[in-house]
């Protein structure tokens, strides 16, 4: 119990690691480009998920195409 209390008491310090550069880092991340950068990060993954998920339906689509 004592150990957990000590850990919890020290947690805020751990969360605010590197207090000197924290503000600069936050400014570098949460700027006016945040939404665009976020979208660009996810773009390849979105495309891969679309391609991968598409395979789930290929057999049904192919059989429909064959039937006309």
């Amino acid at each position, binding site marked *: 119990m004592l150990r957990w209390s000590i850990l919890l008491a020290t947690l805020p310090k751990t969360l605010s690691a590197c207090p000197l550069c924290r503000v600069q880092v936050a400014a*570098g991340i949460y700027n006016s480009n945040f939404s665009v*950068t976020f979208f660009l990060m996810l*773009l390849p*993954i979105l495309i*891969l998920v679309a391609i991968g998920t598409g*395979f*789930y339906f290929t057999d049904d689509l192919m059989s429909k195409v064959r039937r006309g």
Partner: protein
Amino acid sequence: MAEKQQQGPLICAGVLIGAGLGGFVDGILFHQILQWHHMLSTLIPADNLVNIKVNMFWDGIFHAAVWIMTAMGLVFLWHAGQRRDVCWSGRTFLGSLMAGWGLFNIVEGLIDHQFLGLHHVYEYSDNKIPWDIGFLVFGIVMLLEGWSLISQGRKDAIGKEVKNEIQ
């Protein structure tokens, strides 16, 4: 009449998991162990602590998305395993994993390296093109090898259809 055996659901699961594992290889090997690049290392060079931490954040966002894609693959794999009309073929699944990894390299390589120029495979070189090309070539080879295995796996599906027909 025997049920037609499908490959699609297993390919779907394999491609998503393979792409996810390929993404983790990129992240763990190139971003963390070798530190050849980070997600935005061309735009924000990793030459000071603040820039490295900003890149680290975007690395984390990318890897979180890769984790979700892998988890989606596991969900599809679970559903495929419960369907009687899906042929449980090792060749199909292994081929899909390889194709998924290859697709990851091709899609990520083309979008992030070539079109958007967010980063390159090896940032600490004057000529970054050979490294980027190597990354793409590896992806193409994996995709072709994977596709070949998936085609061979179709025989497993046909074999199971025949077996079911006899029974």
